[in-house]
């Protein structure tokens, strides 16, 4: 058996799609012009699939901070925090994040993926229980493979099912860690954190919330769903990323647990990876200040979420269950998904195509992520173009169903 033979079915699907000139996983942004526009295939294209929720990748103050840090401290750290030393800026960012959330401890990781894998896989071990939402991100599933803890899945966003599963564990010895996400990346739906937290605490378990898609997006001060649902004082661990709202790359975990810092000498994805370069740390520190200083960006983001979600709903599309920074359009099958995605790109609109097994319930989704920097005109154009394509391909009836919208 050849090295890649086990991937034969996947290889065939990928080859077929590419032969048809459709390659959603190989898009080249020839030139990125702004948070909402790039040149793709030589064409000026509206970006609606970047996770760049507040548009901070081009914020002048963040760019200036990154440039100044590069000039002052060089391009990279060339080593890990424990082996090669921390820069003062790493420590400053950790203090600022801890302060932002009102927690005592913070650790910065080199990616959000590593923050999840490292934190989760280290917190629980043999004899413990890791209880995860069924629709968890790949980084959470990979954490499951890296721990000797027993893994229990509960139905997506279902506190009753979580309650059942924690009850079944009874008084088994061992720590129990419940892991959920504040906002789920495929459908943009929010976790019912108040209920999940109550059930978790009732059974004496710990709660970890991944706020990758909710930092700067949800909560009065942008502190995520834990703030919006009022459980900041009860959640045990918050994990998040710098690669979405904060416009760079990296991850973090915060906690009040007195022994949290032990993770620094036990978590391998933290210990054996080069730390983030000065430019990244500087732009993230500045982006965190912008999140706090400019709540109007969050308001604009939600205005845009409403515009796109309502626009799609009025056009007759089937969408994710609630409004969120990700708006997902349901399509009937993978072939239709590929055709719609390609037609959108040919018309100068870039979105993400999500197909099974990465999607809940084997659905095919056009995943649109909204940016505060989108204009009303851009979003209206996206609704018009997608509606036209959907009618052309028979996904929507020829006449828009305005009267039956969102039904």
């Amino acid at each position: 058996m050849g090295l890649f033979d086990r991937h034969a079915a996947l290889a065939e699907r990928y080859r077929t799609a590419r032969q048809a000139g459709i390659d959603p996983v190989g898009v080249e942004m020839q030139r990125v012009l702004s948070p909402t526009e790039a040149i793709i295939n030589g064409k000026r294209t509206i970006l609606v699939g970047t996770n760049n929720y507040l548009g901070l990748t081009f914020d002048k103050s963040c760019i200036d901070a990154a440039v100044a840090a590069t000039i002052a401290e060089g391009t990279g750290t060339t080593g890990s925090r424990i082996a090669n030393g921390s820069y003062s800026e790493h420590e400053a960012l950790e203090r600022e994040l801890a302060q932002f959330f009102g927690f005592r401890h913070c650790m910065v990781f080199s990616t959000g993926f590593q923050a999840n894998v490292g934190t989760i896989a280290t917190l629980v071990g043999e004899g413990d229980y890791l209880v995860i939402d069924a629709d968890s991100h790949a980084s959470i599933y990979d954490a499951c493979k890296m721990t000797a803890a027993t893994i229990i899945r509960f139905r997506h966003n279902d506190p009753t099912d979580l309650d059942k599963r924690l009850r079944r564990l009874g008084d088994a010895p061992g720590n129990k860690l419940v892991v959920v996400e504040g906002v789920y990346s495929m459908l943009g739906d929010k976790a019912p954190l108040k209920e999940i937290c109550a059930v978790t605490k009732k059974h004496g378990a710990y709660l970890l919330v991944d706020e990758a898609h909710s930092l700067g997006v949800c909560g009065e001060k942008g502190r995520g769903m834990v703030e919006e649902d009022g459980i900041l004082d009860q959640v045990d661990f918050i994990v998040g990323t710098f690669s979405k709202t904060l416009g760079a790359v990296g991850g973090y975990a915060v906690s009040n647990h007195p022994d949290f810092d032990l993770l620094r000498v036990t978590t391998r994805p933290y210990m054996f990876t080069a730390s983030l370069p000065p430019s990244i740390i500087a732009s993230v520190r500045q982006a965190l200040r912008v999140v706090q200083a400019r709540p109007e960006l969050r308001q604009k983001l939600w205005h845009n979420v409403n515009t796109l979600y309502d626009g799609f709903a009025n056009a007759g599309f089937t969408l994710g269950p609630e409004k969120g920074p990700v708006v997902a359009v349901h399509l009937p099958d993978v072939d239709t998904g590929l055709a719609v995605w390609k037609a959108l790109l040919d018309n100068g609109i870039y979105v993400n195509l999500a197909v099974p097994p990465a999607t809940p319930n084997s659905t095919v989704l056009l995943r649109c992520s909204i940016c505060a920097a989108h204009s009303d005109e851009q979003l209206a154009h996206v609704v018009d173009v997608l509606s036209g394509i959907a009618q052309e391909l028979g996904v929507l009836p020829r006449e828009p169903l305005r009267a039956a919208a969102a039904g």
Partner: protein
Amino acid sequence: MTNDRATGQDDIFAEITKRLEPFRKGETPITLDTDITRDLNIDSLAVMDMIMELEDRFDVSIPLNVVAEIKTVRELADTIGSIRRPA
């Protein structure tokens, strides 16, 4: 089929078979030795859905690490049986 299964695990086998019927390849019947992913037209997501239904039916949680090891209907039935009545 052993006596133990006849007295204790028939209901588990029946519940599994009922849920796997729609995924049968042709007329081949589902037996204890049916390999769930190899002998049936079922994808991994449908397997996980079926397992969640069985967990509710028998009020057990089958750990994900255990699910990964289950290949046949017999192994699934035995797993549910052992969790339901710990030794």
